[in-house]
């Protein structure tokens, strides 16, 4: 589904991603872990088309098509979705209006008819129930005055509403209490199916107990320096990153 080859990217002229290679197939969940500042959010932003991040080398194919060539809205309509590490507040625009606008844009692009108000409301009710979202949160302005946890939950709500093919979760677990973590994870698991795929950025193994990954990658200074199965996350939780860093140093020497 997503094929990243030799990807390099700059922010403010500084090289952050230094040759990322990653293959993600439909039905898979990949986790990316790595120390602060290693480039995890940068990768998420590059994949979704934030123009503050400049790709200097490499290419990305999304279902066989050149992803980097598309503007952010086209990527979204093609099925990319990023649950932001820091969701944005939009005063004066209700969550419902925002989602209806987005959903209809996506549907239009995919030659589907716009949803009627009833269809839309039914869908909102369905999805809100999965996440135990309060009605008032839906009529309120997007993320305005939402608690940290509510914002994260709202990102997953948007995911359920928009039904993307490829989902990037950027530290969706941070700021969630234990119950919310379980609810949000179950939202993801309900949505997970053989036709979609996930790239989950997290610092904590705890999330991966709920959302079980097929692969775990370690991103360090803009490169994936180790990949493994879900047991790698356990190992990282136990030992931190130092042991891989030294492994990496040794391979560099060789």
């Amino acid at each position, binding site marked *: 589904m997503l094929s990243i080859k030799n990807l390099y990217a700059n922010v403010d002229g500084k090289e952050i991603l230094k040759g990322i290679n990653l293959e993600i197939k439909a039905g898979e969940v990949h986790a990316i872990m790595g120390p602060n500042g290693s480039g995890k959010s940068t990768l998420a932003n590059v994949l979704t*088309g934030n123009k503050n991040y400049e790709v200097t080398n490499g290419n990305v194919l999304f279902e066989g098509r050149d992803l980097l060539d598309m503007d952010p809205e086209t*990527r979204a309509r093609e099925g990319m*979705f990023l649950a932001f590490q820091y969701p*944005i507040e939009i005063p*004066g625009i209700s969550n*419902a209006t*925002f989602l209806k*606008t987005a959903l209809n844009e996506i549907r239009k692009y995919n030659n589907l008819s716009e949803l009627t108000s009833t269809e839309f409301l039914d869908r909102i009710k369905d999805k809100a129930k999965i996440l135990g979202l309060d009605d008032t949160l839906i009529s309120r302005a997007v993320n305005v005055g939402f608690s940290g946890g509510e914002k994260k939950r709202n990102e997953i709500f948007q995911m359920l509403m928009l039904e993307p093919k490829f989902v990037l979760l950027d530290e969706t677990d941070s700021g969630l209490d234990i119950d919310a973590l379980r609810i949000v994870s179950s939202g993801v698991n309900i949505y997970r199916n053989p036709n979609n795929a996930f790239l989950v950025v997290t610092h904590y193994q705890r999330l991966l107990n709920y959302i079980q990954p097929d692969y775990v990658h370690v991103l360090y200074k803009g490169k994936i320096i180790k990949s493994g199965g879900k047991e790698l996350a356990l190992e990282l939780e136990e030992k931190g990153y130092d042991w891989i860093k030294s492994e990496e140093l040794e391979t560099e020497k060789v």
Partner: protein
Amino acid sequence: MDNMEHKSANEWYVSKFKVFEDKLNGQSKSFLHDIRKNALNNLVELSFPTNKNEEWKYTNVAPILKHNFLPAIISTLPKIKKEETKQFLFKNFDYHLVVFVNGLFAEELSEIGHLPKGVIVDGLNRIAKNNPGSIDKYINKLSKIDNAFNALNTAYSYDGLVVIVPEGIVLEKPIQVLYLNSSKNDLVLSLPRNLVVAGKNSQVSVIANYHSYGDKTYFSNIITEVYAEENAIVDLYKTQNENDESYHIEKVQAIQKKNSVFNHYNINFGGAIVRNDINTMHDGQNVETHYYGLYLAHGKQHVDNHTFIDHAKPNCMSNELYKGILDDNSRGVFNGKIIVRQDAQKTNAYQQNKTILLSKTATIDTKPQLEIFADDVKCSHGATVGHLDDTSEFYIRSRGVPQELAKSMLIRAFANDVIDTVKIEPLKEQINHMIFEHLHRVEVENK
């Protein structure tokens, strides 16, 4: 050269006064006419402001002065059918409707409807004729003539809105005042002279809705005097949606007695050169003043808002929020003056001006002007100038929303805290609609 030009503008307007007087047939012995004649002397002496005047530093009025406008009362009035006025009105709520065409009361277009006993909602000319005793203690008692623009308005003061709400009356429905202006026949000078008096413990809400009828140049030069007596609550909404060839100058002069509240909303869309002076004086304790402003400009529009709150008494508060959205080559000016006089201990005064520039060539000159002579006060002010936020735009686009619509959402988000203060829900929606219409942008419907 400059001087010559301005002098000739004075001469032009002074020279037309005789024609105006002839038109008054018989009414030239009223209290109003004494005011006019004094103002005419001022018009001879006072010059129109130039950029050398600190208060007019950023606003060049020379383009207004180079035209010889004809005061509406001595020009030919356009014929406007009632049906045609509908498109300009705010709808979906009940109101008393007063319509002025070129600043002159249009009875046949108005629908004032039933009013509680003692309440006056009418045109100045009719009241001056029929019931001068109800207004002679108010007219021109607040507004001081300090430049040729207000001398001009006062010398030709003839018609305008008069609202008098006696003690204890709460006017349930707002008064919608449609000011339609048109230079269909002559190059028109529209000179509304407005008066709003809210008696003790009364409440009144006025929506001054300015529109053009046609797309020709004209000039509106307005004075509005507002009296808020003890415990009165006055909401004055102004929406100015005139054509981009028109000139618009208004001075609002308010006085507030103890425990009164004055809310002024200044929503500006149209006009080639626009200047608003909004002045309030506190004449009692526990007074509240709120100024909300939103100005949108595109093309070569120039919008200048000068606000002034005179904190003369203790324990009063004022809160001011002005926001601008400037596109193309438009220019904004904001000057927010607050004086806290020695007596005015325990004053709370807040002021904010925020501007978003949508193009590289739009500009804003913003200046807070705080003069504080009391020691136990809380005052704050802030001014920011910026662009639409990239990260927010990216967030919205990342959900599939196209860039132009994402920008519209952010504009709406920016204007929101001003619009949100509008108390009349349908009015709020319609103002939101006008924002998108004016910026020629895709609309976001909030449902």
